[in-house]
């Protein structure tokens, strides 16, 4: 049975250790400072670069190529992006949205990819009809010309294979576009700061508090024998583990709350956001516990934690290139963290509609079992 008195004593021990460890506190402070800096930085001004009659200034218009699902030809486009104009190929879910309309920088144009009916090619392969809905700022359709000048030649190979592209009936008329879009005076810097940076900072805080710090403190406890001293005291192993988890979870939640409060306070009340933060934090603590208990020394534990982070990044990259790795990616609970967090930053997400939340629950549950078993078996021995 877990005794709250023991948890309180052990938590007090952890907080006193943290207080006497200025480097850990410094890093947490720096992360909050980064969030504060991003929140207070001024948006990039567009005033000095108005489109003119010549093609050079038209080429400066950025284009968002918005898709619903990845395809080989879209990958091909990604690999052959031009220097100008700047083209962002983004998933529909990642486009900032407000009041049901896309919120893009005021001088950016957008081309939405809509898949039409499937049809059979002469070779018998099934291809889809692709409709391209374009929209642009102002009334001059030519601002999209540099985009089309790159788009069509780059896809020549796919034309010969029978893929059929169609531009929408009035592709260059913003008023007639099917895309519910509004063009507002929002800079790219704003979008990145408030949503992407917030998500990235949350991930960094969670990794630092729940994996790196836990690995460091626990491995130090093991190496010095202080963990053995605690286990031999009246405190039970489960109480020691729980106190460690609560301590690191509090740091993680504290950091996340400050970052969200600074960068995107409107989403503070989103339950899905905190559910994902909670699950990811617990998952990372479990990973950290396994690393700390299996490593021989504090130094090797810290290196293993770094390897875990870098290994995960490599796995995610490989999964975008090779389907064999796609399955492995599905087994990582972190795979579901970023999309859900990013989505919650942009719009309210229902708990039941959050993609992958259930899988995340299962994966984190499995990690809890593994971490518990590791700690009981090897934790202090």
């Amino acid at each position, binding site marked *: 049975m877990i005794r709250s008195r*023991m948890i309180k*004593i052990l938590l007090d*021990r952890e907080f*006193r*250790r943290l207080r*006497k*460890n200025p480097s850990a506190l410094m890093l947490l402070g720096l992360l909050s400072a980064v969030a504060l800096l991003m929140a207070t930085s001024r948006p990039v001004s567009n005033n000095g670069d108005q489109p003119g009659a010549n093609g050079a200034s038209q080429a400066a218009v950025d284009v968002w190529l918005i898709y619903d699902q990845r395809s080989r030809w879209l990958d091909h486009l990604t690999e052959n992006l031009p220097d100008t104009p700047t083209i962002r190929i983004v998933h529909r879910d990642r486009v900032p949205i407000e009041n049901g309309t896309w919120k893009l920088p005021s001088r950016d144009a957008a081309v939405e990819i809509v898949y039409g009916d499937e049809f059979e090619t002469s070779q018998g392969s099934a291809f889809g009809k692709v409709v391209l809905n374009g929209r642009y700022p102002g009334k001059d359709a030519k601002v999209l010309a540099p985009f089309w000048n790159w788009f069509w030649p780059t896809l020549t190979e796919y034309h010969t294979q029978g893929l059929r592209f169609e531009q929408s009936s009035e592709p260059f008329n913003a008023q007639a576009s099917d895309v519910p879009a509004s063009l507002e005076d929002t800079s790219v810097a704003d979008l990145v700061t408030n949503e992407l940076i917030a998500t990235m900072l949350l991930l960094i805080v969670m990794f630092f508090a729940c994996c790196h710090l836990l690995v460091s403190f626990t491995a130090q406890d093991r190496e*010095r*024998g*202080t963990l*053995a*001293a*605690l*286990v*031999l*005291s*009246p*405190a*039970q192993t489960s109480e020691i583990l729980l106190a460690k988890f609560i301590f690191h979870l509090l740091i993680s939640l504290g950091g996340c709350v400050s970052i969200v409060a600074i960068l995107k306070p409107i989403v503070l009340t989103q339950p899905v956001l905190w559910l994902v933060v909670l699950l990811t934090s617990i998952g990372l603590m479990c990973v950290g516990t396994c690393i700390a208990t299996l490593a021989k020394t504090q130094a090797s534990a810290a290196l293993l934690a770094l390897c875990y982070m870098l290994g995960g990044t490599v796995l995610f990259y490989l999964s975008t290139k090779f389907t064999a790795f796609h399955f492995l990616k599905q087994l990582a609970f972190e795979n579901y963290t970023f999309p859900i967090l990013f989505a919650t930053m942009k719009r309210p997400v229902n708990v039941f509609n959050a993609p992958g939340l259930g899988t995340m629950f299962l994966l984190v549950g499995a990690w809890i079992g593994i971490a518990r078993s590791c700690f009981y078996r090897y934790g*202090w*021995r």
Partner: protein
Amino acid sequence: MSAPAIEIDNLVVRFGRFTAVDGLSLTVNEGELFGFLGPNGAGKTTTIKVLIGSLRPTSGEIRVAGFKIPTEFDRVKQQFGYVPDTENHVEEFTGRENLELFARLYDMPPSIVDESLAKLELSEAADVLVSAYSKGMRRKLLIAREIMHRPKILYFDEPTANLDAHSTEVVRELLRDLASQGTTIFLTTHNMEEVEQICDRVAILCRGQLVECDTPTNFVTRHAVRIVKAQFEQQGEVVRESLDLDLDDQRERLAEIIRTEKCVRVHSQEFDFQDVFLKITGQAYT
């Protein structure tokens, strides 16, 4: 006769093909100051690790304070204290903070901290960070921590390692006091003088097996060898000979030396517990 505090029956601990402890059986009585000796690699630390529940035995039955180890570990761990051979303090804390943490865990009154610090003569350094302590001070702090909750059984691994002569005496006196109050003390040491001075009984382990278990006095009586060292001149050179007086021919040889040679020096050799230990473990000088 007092009830056994520790009962070990046919304990076997194997690491792969290597047998660290091989069929060890012994009983330690309540309030006894028990020395557990053996050369390096004999299996002493492995046995202590099994006793404190940190290592699972391959086979055998262990009872500490009447509780089975490792199955009833959670019930028995409050009954013992363990002073390992390496210090395991929270380095960022002061000596007092370290003891306060454990006093709270054991639900002891805060006054016990000052009492324990005073017993080990650490009151003046109580508010200094442990990272600034000397090895001897760390050792004393560790002992203070482990006696604080008044355990029934105390495991000591090298109790007086790194201590100066005065602190060694303080700790030995403390051990005698604890034993007289009923605490069972199970200690391992390489200091044979200490064993002879403070232990009620001693078990000698060699290559994982129990060789003998008895009081230090009985050990010395049983294993003492009466050796006489003679130094004499023979054909202009100084010669030294060690002679065992328990052997007839060597007694006669001594008589002959005294009668015929010019003796420079004849003296008997002291035979203490260290000699017994070396003889039993097969490490005696030849």
